[in-house]
């Protein structure tokens, strides 16, 4: 077996070890790389930044621990921005296995920023079948959520006074790892015409750029990179900023493996042709 044939047959476990080292070493050395902000993330930031204090935004959060690594830093960054600007947040929970996780995340950032439940943010409970819920929220939030996550009547919460439906809010920004993005687009944005922006996993981001181009979506925060960009905009480097520096090293390793694999493949193919 030639050298080129050997490099196309590297044991996958060696690849895993190299990738793990590419994560661990930069993490220990704390290498920080610059983050360039893209227009689609800046747009989301600008929309929130330009809202007058006291404005209300809706933040449906649909993810569970499996995608938490990408979306938690995003939620943290946006919440920090909102609470600093005195923007009120209505959080909705549409993904059952993520309900408690998201409640804890809201609580953590609220405590950090001194936001008060019921005055600065409200968490609506979980409801199944988002299409119906999204449409009924367009009539009145109380139709689907007579009570909040903790069982308090929405009418008893100071922040919800005078907030009936989407008309009383300035933006819907979904932090989402599910097809819920489409539900909000189809049943919400198209029907009720609210301003709509996304925070999605990197896998999903590529699919939604066409909606950005058509104007149906006003901005996209895509994956850990989008979260890191948002962190740099609010000048609060956290998990995403740390993660993106490591990500760059891992990408270099992956590109090197792709090059090695292709060189090995083409060189060994040439030799095999020669033998024939």
């Amino acid at each position, binding site marked *: 077996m030639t050298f080129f044939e050997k490099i196309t047959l590297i044991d996958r*476990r060696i690849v895993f070890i190299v990738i793990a080292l590419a994560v661990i070493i930069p993490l220990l050395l704390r290498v920080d790389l610059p983050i360039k902000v893209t227009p689609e993330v800046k747009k989301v930031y600008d929309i929130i930044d330009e809202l007058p204090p006291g404005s209300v935004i809706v933040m449906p959060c649909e993810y569970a621990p499996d995608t938490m*690594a990408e979306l938690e830093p995003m939620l943290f960054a946006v919440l920090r921005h909102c609470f600093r600007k005195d923007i009120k947040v209505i959080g909705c929970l549409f993904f059952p296995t993520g309900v408690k996780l998201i409640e804890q995340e809201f609580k953590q950032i609220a405590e950090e920023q001194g936001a008060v439940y019921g005055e600065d943010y409200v968490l609506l409970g979980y409801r199944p079948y988002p299409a119906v819920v999204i449409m009924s929220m367009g009539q009145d939030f109380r139709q689907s959520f007579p009570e909040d996550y903790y069982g308090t009547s929405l009418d008893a919460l100071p922040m919800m006074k005078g907030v009936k439906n989407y008309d009383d809010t300035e933006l819907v920004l979904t932090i989402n790892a599910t097809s819920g993005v489409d539900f909000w687009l189809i049943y919400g944005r198209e029907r009720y015409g609210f301003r709509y922006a996304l925070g999605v996993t*990197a*896998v999903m*981001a590529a699919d939604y750029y066409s909606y950005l181009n058509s104007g*149906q979506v006003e901005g996209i925060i895509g994956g850990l990179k989008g979260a890191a960009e948002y962190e740099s905009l609010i000048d609060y480097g956290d998990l995403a900023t740390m993660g993106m520096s490591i*990500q760059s090293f891992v990408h270099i390793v992956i590109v090197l493996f792709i090059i090695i694999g292709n060189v090995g493949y083409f060189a060994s193919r040439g030799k095999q042709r020669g033998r024939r």
Partner: protein
Amino acid sequence: MSFDPGVWLAAILTLCIFSFLYKDNPFYKFAEHLSVGVSAGYYLVVLIRQTLIPAFVNPLMAGYWHVVPELPRSFGIFLLIFPVFMGILLFARFSRKWAYVARYPIAMIWGIGSGVVIPLVLQNHVIRQLQATMVPITVQSWADIGNLFIAVGVLTGLVYFFFSKEHKGLFGGTAKVGIWILMIGFGSTFGFTVMARVSLLIGRIIFLMKDWLGIIG
């Protein structure tokens, strides 16, 4: 190092799952089955506590039947009870004799769902997207070059999916450009996918090194 039992449990289960990268083993199987079981149980509890009780039991017990205040009280009761009744009918599938009854709620779901979905999906995914491709094509700025690329990409991509004429000559060449455009799209999607998967790995390793071992601050 953390002294929180929850963090230890999460760390050990993470390592159990990672052990699959070496080869399939009982630790991985245990963690996998535990995850499925806990998720199903958690889902059930959330459904009961966050949906059934606040949206049905509490309003029924408290006499708060005016879900829609503009409608008469009797219709409010109907709106509360009828969906639950239809939901219960779905369980008729477990009986051979009464299985046909489950078709009524299914028919209702399909009928209402289709009626609402079809016009909105057409508007969203077809008409609005078509509108977005009808852009002025001039060559005065970088944005115009982007518009030109959108037009060429859409047309050549559509030509590639036209199979009623053999892909030969000018038509075949256009289809070939279309497939290249598609490949660029797939490539960018794959790139995003790699980034997403690496992000998840980074998240877990940060958890192990920061929250569990306390090596990094």
